[in-house]
């Protein structure tokens, strides 16, 4: 599973990075790399079975808890 994730992310990087380096769009490359890295970390966590906190449930519980619904 992790191998599949790494191959997928590798393909995305291969599609995008050469074009950005050729155009010397460093700001865009940095933005792309940071976002992709965040995605990679989270994907690897999911494929290793590490639970990621459910964001929507947390928002819902916070709102309904605050308003006593």
């Amino acid at each position, binding site marked *: 599973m992790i191998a599949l994730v790494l191959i997928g992310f590798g393909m995305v990087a291969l599609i995008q990075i050469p074009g950005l380096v050729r155009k010397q769009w460093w700001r*865009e490359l940095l933005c792309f790399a940071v976002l992709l890295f965040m995605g990679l970390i989270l994907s690897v966590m999911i494929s290793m079975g590490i639970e990621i906190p*459910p*964001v*929507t449930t947390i928002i*819902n519980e916070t709102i*309904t808890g605050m308003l006593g619904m």
Partner: protein
Amino acid sequence: MLLENGKISSLQLSLLIIGFIFGASVIIAPGQQAGHDAWIAIALGLMEGLIIAGIFTVLTQHFKGKTLVEINSLVYGKILGNFISILFIWYLFHLGALVLNNYSRFLKLELYPATPKALTLILIMLVCALTVRRGIEVLARCSLILVTITILMAIFDTLLVAPHMDLQNLLPILDVPIGKLLWTSHATAIFPFGDAVAFLMVLAFVNKPEKGRSAVFKGVLIAGLVLIGVAVRNAAVLGQMNPIYTYPTYITAQVIDVGDVLTRVEVLVAINLITMGFFKISVAYYGAVLGLAQVFNLRSYRPIILPIGILMVILALTNVSNTAEMFDFANNGYPIYTIPFQIAIPLITLLVAKLRKLPQIGGEQA
């Protein structure tokens, strides 16, 4: 440098808004909490939805050809403006993930129980990413064909299910307590009508900006009328069972049986969800990607399409634990959670712009 060179017509905008509003509401019936009075809740919600549309369209009329991110920078200055823009981008990103989640949950429950959710999510995300990459014009052109087909399918379904309709099921009218009805109508105004605030990132690209406002109103109104029709049909066919079902529109289509030959038409509803969900996800995705590119002053939004798409799939996979929680959020948390994004941000921005007498025509800020 302009990040988006495409232009869309006011007709395309109206159709895009109809498709966007149908998005998840083809499957998650709005106003369902009000039981057989759902159509009244939708009608009241439509009025509130039109007010929300009124607020954000006034803002875009003031700042013609500018997206919300650019408007925020002008009105609040660079730092505060970008902060507010990032909040709005989060809303678009979260909205896209929620629709993706609804979409994959429905496919898993009703159509592909053995297929992993991640696979359906990645496939729809790839289609949306390709569309967003091609720009707003391509999305708008798709709406002309797909929304027309969806409305025709809804009429077709209604005609076929007509023999099973019993209008007595709509009685007694106003059976739900008034407090519950008002809350449900507010929830309906927020989802699906208020979500159209995502078009603050799209209205800048209408070829005749002065017609943008009426196009938004037409879109919201037509979508609202179709949804009222669908709610009446569902209540008339399913009766007391209507509020029990998770996906009443889908179940209503299952009832269709013409001479034992024309059956299992519900897959048409699933097709509607797939096509209309595509619009809602794509508009939210496009808004989030374009907004982020403008905040970070990028020369093109294309490099960040795939990473944002990946993050959206991850959020869609992990954002709620189960279907009951998702419905609880849609009915209770969401109508409050979205008020800052759908009403407060556009309204306060408009008021501050008025106080600061922006935009100054001919001045450096115009």
